[in-house]
């Protein structure tokens, strides 16, 4: 424990000295995040500086091994770093699907060469990734995908279409599920990586009901991909995908609930101060559910870290968390009344409440629908027949 105390005080001092004041302001939206990439756009010098300083210490990915650009911190040290960052309100220096999704998969399934090549780039924020999973004909039935990769001896030839590719129009590379065999539905899928500038790759943003376009359709027309850009075994990409989906669901479950700080999630009622007794009653019922869920989140992460969580429990969390978040935004709209219905006025911050509300409707669809999560819980946790 003494070592950890020393680490804490050193970390605290370093953060105090190095985290720019601007980077201690709360983020107002996804747009405030630092996404990195080949041609990064920084909102400020402070943002760039903060990312670079943290990357230098490997603290953009503190728990990754030092060899791959990480901080090499233990679980306990990582926790201390997070606590100390939270203490001063320090923003995350880098947000990326490379860190949250591809990285863990590469660490588990990648070759030494792949790890050495890709992980440090990710840690330094020099590459921005997107995820090519869903297809128009394969939504909930992810494994029903049709994008085809033909073995052409020295390369794969990829043809097909993906949909719901987050920020594909801004990504440098994609990690992508493709069909390399039609003999088996699940065991004919491979997990490939390739550059979005490869000839034959094109993207088209999808306009959402919120008016924003965070997702794209992504088209592959005779895209050539080198053989060594498959992660894991050929035809066994489904194992990689499933591993990665678990991470994604945990992340989504925690979205919009103000983090996982137990009762720290805060009260919606306190934020809204409802002046209507009937609305107040609904908000109080929501607060009970949200504060209870916050306690569950805290417990779940402890159990998860300790290996005591059921492998299917992220599905339970994803389901409960996203349904709760939708309900939260319904109540925000109810409290906002006609003010919240304005769509393009300055007063409404360009319809922020309404757009955020519409955005949450996707929470229970993306990353596996609520129905899919319930199927998983019924089958894998409850052991119900034929589920």
């Amino acid at each position: 424990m003494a070592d950890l105390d020393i680490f804490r005080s050193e970390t605290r001092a370093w953060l105090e000295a190095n985290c720019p004041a601007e980077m201690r302001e709360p983020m107002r939206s996804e747009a405030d995040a630092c996404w990195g990439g080949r041609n990064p756009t920084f909102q400020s010098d402070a943002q760039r500086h903060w990312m670079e300083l943290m990357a230098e210490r490997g603290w953009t990915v503190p728990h990754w091994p030092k060899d791959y650009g990480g901080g090499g911190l233990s679980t306990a040290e990582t926790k201390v770093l997070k606590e100390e960052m939270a203490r001063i309100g320090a923003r995350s220096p880098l947000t990326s699907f490379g860190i949250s999704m591809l990285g863990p998969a590469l660490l588990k399934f990648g070759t030494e060469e792949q790890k050495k090549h890709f992980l440090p780039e990710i840690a330094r924020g020099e590459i921005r990734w997107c995820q090519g999973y869903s297809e128009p004909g394969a939504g909930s039935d992810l494994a029903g995908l049709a994008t085809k990769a033909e073995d052409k001896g020295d390369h794969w030839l990829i043809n097909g279409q993906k949909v719901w590719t987050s920020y594909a129009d801004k990504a440098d590379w994609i990690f992508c599920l493709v069909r390399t065999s039609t003999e088996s539905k699940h065991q004919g899928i491979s997990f490939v990586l390739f550059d979005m500038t490869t000839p034959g790759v094109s993207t088209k943003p999808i306009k959402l009901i919120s008016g924003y376009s965070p997702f794209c359709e992504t088209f592959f027309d005779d895209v050539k991909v080198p053989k060594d850009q498959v992660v894991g075994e050929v035809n066994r990409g489904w194992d990689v995908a499933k591993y990665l989906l678990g991470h994604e669901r945990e992340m989504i479950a925690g979205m919009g609930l103000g983090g996982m700080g137990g009762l720290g999630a805060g009260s919606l009622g306190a934020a809204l101060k409802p002046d209507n007794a009937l609305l107040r009653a609904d908000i109080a019922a929501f607060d009970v559910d949200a504060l209870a869920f916050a306690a569950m989140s805290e417990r779940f992460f402890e159990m998860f870290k300790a290996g005591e969580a059921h492998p299917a429990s992220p599905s339970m969390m994803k389901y409960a968390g996203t349904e709760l978040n939708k309900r939260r935004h319904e109540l925000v709209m109810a409290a906002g009344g006609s003010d919240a219905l304005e769509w393009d006025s300055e007063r409404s911050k360009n319809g922020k409440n309404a757009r955020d509300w519409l955005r949450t409707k996707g929470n229970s669809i993306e990353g596996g629908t609520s129905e899919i999560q319930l199927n998983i819980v019924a089958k894998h946790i409850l052991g119900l027949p034929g589920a």
Partner: protein
Amino acid sequence: MPLLTDDQKMLKETAAGFLADEGGPAKQLRHWRDTGCTDGYGTELWKKFAELGLTGICIPEDQGGLGLGSVEAALVLEEIGRNLTPSPFLTTAVAGARAIEGTAHAERLYPGILVGDCVLALAVDESRGHSPEKTGLSAERRGNGFVLNGAKQFVVHGNSADVILTVARTSGSPGDRDGLTLFAVPKGAAEVDSVTLADSSKAARIKFDNVELDADAVVSEVDNGWTPLARALNAGRAGAAAELVGVAAGASTMTVEYLKQRKQFGKLIGEFQALQHRAAHLHGEIEIARAAALKAAELIDSGDDRAELAVAVAKAKAADVASLAVREGVQMHGGIGMTDEHDIGLYLKREAVLGELFGDVYYHRNKVAELSGY
């Protein structure tokens, strides 16, 4: 409650055919939204409403209208809801026409309404919530007329309306029904700030900064504005309930169709029992909401003193059910339901606006409690 008469069935069919042909999202809502129309609806379509006599649906026959009631208006509004048709039908032909019924303003304004040349808006709300009794906008006598000071918001079609029926306080204090006066405020008299709502419809925030009106702007009598206002609100709320039933039914029909087409895991998703039960539950709820909306309309038409209660029940129930219908609709459509390209999201947005209009579910549940004596 009697079933629909043959005349009513015919009206319903006419409206259904007309709005399915002319009033759907591609021809109307999306078209006007994507071309930046400042009215938020098509005036040509409104003229067709007039040609069919629908703008005069609630106007007495001896004044040139169809002389029909809230039940008939509900039949048309359900079709408007089903097709998401943007139009000033609810504010002008239903709530507005009822407000001025039997007053001097009827003679002045009905002719324009009948030919589709005059659009009315109702200015009631002064904050984010609906609470007509709490009206604070002041109208003070000056000389032969009045001077109005205050502000209104969520005035649907207020940005393009020819006349804005505005509730103001001439005596008493916020909370009293007595002391309110309804004014017919002509276009241009007050400062109108146009606002686009989430469903792409247009409304206004209006500032009354020493707005001077003649005495004949008063609808009905000074201090007795509650009477015409209550007529307008009952008609408007029952109408909004009927439109919400249409929104729910439209979203639900679209969703059930999708369940019969979309395949996942080698099966039609409509084969999954969990979705079947949710769809079946929703179906029943829509039937119930429709019955409640028709009951409210019927009691208004028969002058029954339970009409106010029935209207509150109808508005609360229809908003609840429509909210369920659009939420289930988007969820069951999956990813495609989140795209602007698909119409199901338009139902979600329309429901939000209609649910709020003339009082949300909380307002109307509370009203049910108050009217029931608890």
